[in-house]
């Protein structure tokens, strides 16, 4: 049976615009591998469509991009898509990766109680810098790359069939490499000042559930 993946990509502000564009590489990789991708972008990243695909298509991998809170991940205009103790059972038997602030704190652990295989996400606010002049071409933004390349590595790693633990490890290693680069003597003062936010993201990335699970 072919593998299925759901990805949500709201684009209603700078943050979601960047996350959405940086996810395109993951979509392309999944398609290359013959994975069926349900791509809910912009207005389509709403609760109805998300629930519909989770129920009817049963994707093995779910990727959320967007704003979040401790008990939920958000979609277009921050509409909650999956909420702990409401519809988190929809994540049953699935691996989820959420670049969505704080959702690993409650939704992550609650979804595991509801039978989710694993939930990889951030327990605190996900932070990144970007260059406003690059807003129309987010993939050329070298500042955002420092933050978004590591965070998106987890998606690529899961799509490649690595375990959740490996996806977490690779992502943290990339954060670490970028921190070391920014703290090196070759970096400018301004560059060095951004290192603490990479460290913050690295520190708060956490995996719940079965870390040996693969997609």
């Amino acid at each position, binding site marked *: 049976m072919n593998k299925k993946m759901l990805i949500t990509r709201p684009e209603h502000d700078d943050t979601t615009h960047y996350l959405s564009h940086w996810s395109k590489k993951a979509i392309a990789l999944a398609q290359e591998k013959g994975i069926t991708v349900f791509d809910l972008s912009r207005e389509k990243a709403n609760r109805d469509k998300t629930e519909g695909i989770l129920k009817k298509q049963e994707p093995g991998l779910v990727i959320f991009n967007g704003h979040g809170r401790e008990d939920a991940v958000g979609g277009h205009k921050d509409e909650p898509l999956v909420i702990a103790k409401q519809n988190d059972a929809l994540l049953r038997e699935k691996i989820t990766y959420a670049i969505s602030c704080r959702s690993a704190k409650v939704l992550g652990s609650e979804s595991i109680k509801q039978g989710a295989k694993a939930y990889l996400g951030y327990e605190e*606010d*996900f932070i990144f810098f970007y260059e406003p002049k690059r807003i129309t071409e987010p993939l050329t933004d070298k*500042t955002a790359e420092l933050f978004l390349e590591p965070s998106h590595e987890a998606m690529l790693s899961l799509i490649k069939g690595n375990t959740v633990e490996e996806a977490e490890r690779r992502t943290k290693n990339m954060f670490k490499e970028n921190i070391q680069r920014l703290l090196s003597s070759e970096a400018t003062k301004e560059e060095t000042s951004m290192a603490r936010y990479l460290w913050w993201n690295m520190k708060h990335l956490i995996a719940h559930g079965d870390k040996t699970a693969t997609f």
Partner: protein
Amino acid sequence: MIDEDIKKLIIARLEVLPSDKKISIGSIGEFTKEQLIESVKREDAIGRKMIQIELEFLQALKEGIVTT
């Protein structure tokens, strides 16, 4: 009420952030360096978050656990 010396330290550290870039702080929004500094001065939610990050990072540096 946050100690004034701590606020001064955090503001000094935020002053070094790049001026031509913006920072996205999750669902809270996107900010310039100047807005972050104002938030620290006002001790609002963003300012308190910045203080938390700075203090935890300084502690991690002190303990040598930033890249371990």
